[in-house]
């Protein structure tokens, strides 16, 4: 996949910047991983190598932490990431139909990326926006009270 060819120097730079910002101690590991994930879009293998030597923590341990948290991705993601809330409050107010509409539009299933690398579809648990469910998030933009008919319109904006 394209994302795997991330420029090694770029990864190195992102890792160093994150470690410099938060300091090289174990309790800053999650903020560091968060920051790398944010700058690169995911945490590539090279980042683990680099981080391992900087923090003096085994690579396996870093990977075990990174793979535990939902907001950290160890796989490349599409240009736009769609998060859909699948918790009960959104589900009972029409979330089921919206979820179907999103899948129909993108023609992919949960945790998949479209072949053109444009979209990644993931589910998320509650985002704390339950009073305006169903809720979907595209990258950082939040959409509430989503109606199945609006899905295409919303997503077209990110073409």
């Amino acid at each position: 996949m394209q994302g795997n060819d991330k420029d090694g120097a770029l990864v190195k730079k992102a890792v160093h910047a994150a470690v410099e910002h938060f300091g090289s101690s174990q309790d800053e590991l999650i903020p560091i991983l968060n920051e790398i994930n944010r700058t690169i879009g995911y945490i590539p293998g090279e980042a683990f190598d680099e981080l391992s030597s900087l923090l003096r923590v085994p690579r396996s341990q870093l990977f075990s932490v990174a793979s535990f948290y939902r907001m950290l991705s160890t796989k490349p993601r599409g240009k736009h990431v769609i998060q859909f809330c699948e918790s009960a409050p959104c589900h009972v107010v029409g979330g089921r139909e919206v979820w179907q509409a999103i899948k129909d539009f993108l023609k992919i299933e949960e945790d998949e990326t479209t072949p053109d690398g444009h979209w990644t579809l993931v589910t998320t648990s509650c985002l704390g926006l339950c009073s305006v469910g169903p809720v979907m998030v595209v990258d950082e933009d939040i959409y509430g009270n989503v109606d199945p008919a609006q899905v295409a319109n919303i997503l077209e904006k990110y073409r």
Partner: protein
Amino acid sequence: MKAYRSMVLVSSDPASIEQGANEVYQALQSEINAYGLENEISLTMVGDVGRHDAVPLVIVYPEAVIYGPVTKENVHHLVEEHLYKGRIASTLQAPIKELSGKIAWLNTRKGTLPAEQRIVLERAGIIDPESIDDYIIHDGYQALAKALTEMSPEEIFSTLEKSGLRGRGGAGFPTGTKWRFVYKSKSSKKYVICNADESEPGTFKDRLILEGDPHSIIEALAIAAYAVGADEGYLYIRGEYTIAQQRMKKAIQQAEEMGFLGENIFGTDFEFKLHVHSGAGAYICGEETALIESIEGKRGEPRARPPYPTTNGLWGKPTLVNNVETLANVPPIIRRGADWYQSFGPASSPGTKVYTIMGNVNQTGLIEVPMGITLREVIAIYAKGMKNGKPFKLAQTGGSSGSIIPAVLQDTPMDFDSFAKAGVALGSGALLICDEETCVVDLARVLLNFFRKESCGKCNPCRIGNQRAYEILTNVAEGTGTMQDLDDLMLLSENLYQLSNCGLGQTAGAPIRDILAHFRAEVEAHVRLKVCPTGICPMSGKRI
């Protein structure tokens, strides 16, 4: 929520509708408008109020007068007398009846508008959350000053114990007692942590406090640190709450500049340092030992307990972990005293509770009311009734680990003890209110899907049990479940409760237990008749 002088409720159960409740409602609306009272009086169709002998009923607050049967012809008289002139229209009052059971709540509320009582949300939405000056003007940091200069740790513990404050994260452990445990643990280094990993589906109260009144949490943590003997604290905020994190960081910086954090606070030798720590998307990190692991930079897997964090917490040191809402109650209690706090809600669990209301109701949102309010009141008054007038079927409390509460329990006061007695749980204060078009199998399946994904995988009963329960529920929803499956579900639910290491697994089986206890017939219809009574389940005949 807008403040009204009076509140008028119209019953709209099927019997009331048949007797003309809709016409009465319309007549009330036009009469209220005719007198120009529409900004002073709220009018709501409330569904079933629990009494059917003199329908339609019209109930007027704050006097809690019950009128009935009301017809559209006598609405004019009622509005003119009661709402305009302020006299009770006694000729229209419903026959006096021993009010018991379902309608007893009307009795207990006599003469009081069951108004919102804001303690923890007192400032949220009123002050500028990014201005420390605004907070100080609204009595901010007074409690910290009082605690540091006038109170010993012992006095703080006994004030909290006397106030009856119990943890608002879900378990309801007495706060003062927890603080005392940490105080008694001997160590030169201790920590206080605010658990702001609010991830319980349907719960967004903590977000509002963090975003709307960040300094109140800083103040509470500083008081806690002083009382238990800690000098360092963490605010563990879930990764999704970016605004809350930014506000908190800014507030900490402001507090440091003003000397409410740092060294020699209020001229004493107390010092306190506070950090914001972001989560990264893991429900389990709301469990306090998993949260501690996460701050230490590890996978958020709960530790075996005992030892408890009060003796062996962050980096092995005694640690106090409190939920956001619990902490937000502390400064007002310190400032105004335990007796003041005791005056709200029932004696066994005083104070207020923040509830988030969502689901098939007319008005969703968030309220803070005295403990002990009933579900019927919440639906009728704050949620403005069920959407499209459909009957209320069940409520799911406390997010995914709460209980499924059937309509028959809607008059049980919502406080820790009454709920425990009825065999249900208050949880974190989420109220997902569902109408008759909700299928219990579908709902349980969604809840179990959540647990199966959020299980950290450390212990087998939870990792395998939730997955298996989800599969069986899926089969039931596809019309391929068997009666044996239902027995297996019950056993799984019991095993999850008995064998899981932490609260996630222990409560994950609750939806299964609840639907089989309260909605057995509906579940069996899926199995025996291969029919989903609400038409929601796919029933495609597939089996995993």
